[in-house]
């Protein structure tokens, strides 16, 4: 049992303490009550005061609210007005936008119509251009220096003084008449026959074309105009066309290429110089092209012409026509390979006419020269990655008729006549377009062998040519070359250099 400190206190003390406590509580309780009451009264009073203040405030507020309300009402009204105005503006803007859009649509339509009209005009103009007469052509100027020993036979045909030369201008007149008909003329302005030489006994006579203008007493040298080509063509489709007129003989690579800007070297091959085939013929030419596959082209041609003659351009002096057939197969893929041939036969006749009698009138013909010729021409062209190899071989047989033979032009004495003979000619050209960007340089090498006649092999020349072809622009070509000519007998040996600037326009 523990000691409880409270139990130690006597009951009396407890009673006294309790009484004191009660008295104390009684005292403070009414006090607090009164305080509370007082507080209540105070708070009530305060509340009352506050209420009265509030009422006053409320009244003040009320009046202030009312004025605010008025203000708000006014502001609302104003806002409403502003809204209305804005709505009206918005409406106006919408109308304007709509109007602008419709104007824009109409401008776009007008623009499209204008573009359409311009495009139609552009097309019509191009169509007119296609059917317009077109002029274009080419020309060249050259410099040549031959090195020839004085005792060489070749001095008959070549000179050894260094010379500039501007002797030709080729002009094309080209007119596409309609979709199927076309006309082409090639006119060749030249200074010839100035400088042409002929052997007269032991004299070599030069042609001088100097003339005096009688109205001005001004002397000048005239040249001449030659019509190199003049044909009308009907070509409704690729596989058939017909030309009538004067056209380039469709053989080889060189004769077809034809222009000095297209031909790679300065000098043309000997087979062309010595006219193994006529460069051009007058008559009919049927031709066409078919495509057995997309990369294979087959060209064919048939010629029926006056053949070769002293004036075959305009008249045939005999009843025989020249007939030829052309076939060329070309593969055009990653590399290009073409093989071609042209076979020709015709009769050459040169004659004089004379009036044999007056009454009755009678004429005689005296045939000066007459022979039949057969010519076979074969060509090859290969191109790959800048390399170009072209080669032509020609074989020609000449059989004279009725002993009507010409003088042997290779005999300086002019005492012998031409025998029946055959001629062969071949050339090979190898060229390579250097893979240099923006500079089109093409070194080339060419070898020619020309046997004019099987009985004149000693004078048959071989020609080595080495040169450079520079295509300065698509229209300008400059070429320079060295050539060395030699023969078994040495009679035609010589060498030389030449350079040419060729232009197409």
């Amino acid at each position, binding site marked *: 049992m523990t000691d409880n400190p409270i139990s130690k206190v006597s009951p009396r003390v407890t009673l006294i303490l309790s009484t004191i406590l009660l008295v104390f509580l009684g005292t403070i309780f009414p006090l607090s009550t009164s305080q509370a009451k007082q507080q209540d009264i105070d708070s009530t009073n305060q509340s009352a005061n506050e209420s009265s203040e509030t009422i006053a405030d409320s009244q003040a507020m009320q009046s202030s609210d009312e004025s605010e309300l008025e203000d708000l009402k006014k502001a609302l009204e104003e806002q409403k007005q502003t809204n209305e105005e804005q709505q009206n503006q918005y409406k106006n803007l919408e109308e304007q936008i709509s109007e602008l859009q419709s104007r824009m649509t109409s401008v776009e339509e007008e623009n499209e119509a204008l573009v*359409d009209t311009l*495009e*139609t005009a*552009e*097309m*019509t103009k*191009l*169509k007119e*251009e*296609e059917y317009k007469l*077109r002029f*274009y*052509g*080419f020309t060249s100027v050259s410099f040549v220096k031959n090195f020839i020993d004085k005792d060489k036979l070749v001095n008959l045909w070549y000179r050894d003084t260094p010379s500039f030369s501007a002797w030709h201008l080729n002009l*094309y007149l*080209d007119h596409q008449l309609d*979709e199927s008909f076309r006309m*082409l003329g090639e006119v060749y302005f030249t200074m010839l026959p100035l400088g042409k030489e002929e052997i007269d006994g032991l004299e070599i006579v030069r042609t001088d074309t100097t003339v005096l203008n009688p109205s001005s007493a001004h002397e000048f040298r005239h040249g001449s105009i030659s019509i190199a080509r003049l044909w009308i063509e009907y070509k*409704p*489709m*690729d*596989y058939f066309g017909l030309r009538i007129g004067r056209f380039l003989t469709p053989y080889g690579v060189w004769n*077809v*290429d*034809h*222009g000095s*800007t*297209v031909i790679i070297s300065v000098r043309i091959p000997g087979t062309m110089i010595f006219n193994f085939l006529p460069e051009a013929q007058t008559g009919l030419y049927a031709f066409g*092209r078919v*495509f057995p*596959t*997309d*990369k294979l*082209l087959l060209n064919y041609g048939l010629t029926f012409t006056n053949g070769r003659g002293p004036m075959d351009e305009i008249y045939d002096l005999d009843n025989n026509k020249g007939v030829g057939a052309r076939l060329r197969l070309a593969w*055009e*893929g990653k590399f290009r390979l073409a093989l071609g041939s042209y076979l020709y036969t015709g009769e050459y006749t040169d004659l004089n006419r004379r009036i044999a009698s007056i009454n009755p009138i009678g004429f005689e013909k005296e045939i000066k020269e007459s022979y039949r010729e057969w010519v076979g021409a074969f060509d090859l062209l290969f191109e790959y990655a800048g390399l170009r190899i072209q080669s032509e071989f020609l074989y020609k047989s000449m059989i004279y008729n009725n002993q009507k033979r010409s003088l042997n032009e290779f005999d300086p004495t002019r005492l012998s006549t031409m025998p029946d003979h055959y001629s062969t000619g071949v050339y090979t050209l190898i060229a390579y377009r250097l893979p240099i960007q*923006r500079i*089109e340089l093409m070194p080339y090498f060419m070898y020619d062998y020309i046997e004019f006649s099987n009985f004149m092999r000693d004078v048959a020349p071989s020609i080595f040519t080495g040169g450079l072809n520079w*295509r300065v622009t*698509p*229209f300008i070509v400059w070429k320079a070359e060295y050539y060395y000519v030699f023969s078994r007998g040495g009679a035609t040996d010589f060498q030389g250099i030449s350079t040419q600037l060729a232009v*197409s326009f």
Partner: protein
Amino acid sequence: MKTITISVVSLLMLLCSVIAIPAKAESPEDIIVFVSKDFEIDSVTRDELKSIYLKKKTSWSSKDRIICINAKEDTVLRKAFRASVLQMSMENEKRYWEEQKIKANVSEPPVFSNTVKAVFKVRKIFKAKGAISYAFRKDTKTNIVKTVLVLDKNK
């Protein structure tokens, strides 16, 4: 501070320019070839197209004359066509046409700014069926012309 800000902004711009995705260049595969809407041709081979545009082939098997129309020089379209079909550089093409002018008396195809409309107009105005041309796929209104398949070789 100002300097640093400018430097940072510049660096960001440089970074953006380096990693910016370049605009998609038109490729040759995006070129389509087309003819007049009522023309019978449905396909051509690439080699045939080349022969047409080099004017080695000038008539269709239907005997209609081929009218090939080129895009204007120096356009992206023309360059793409030249590279993929003609397989030539511009210099080579110019040389080719200059040589053809003298050799074969042939001139290059006409050029138009709008090749689609050109084919359409050739048919409408000149009543010629055989026009052919090319354009980028995205520029071709196929309701006025007919697309032609370009095959790599004959089937």
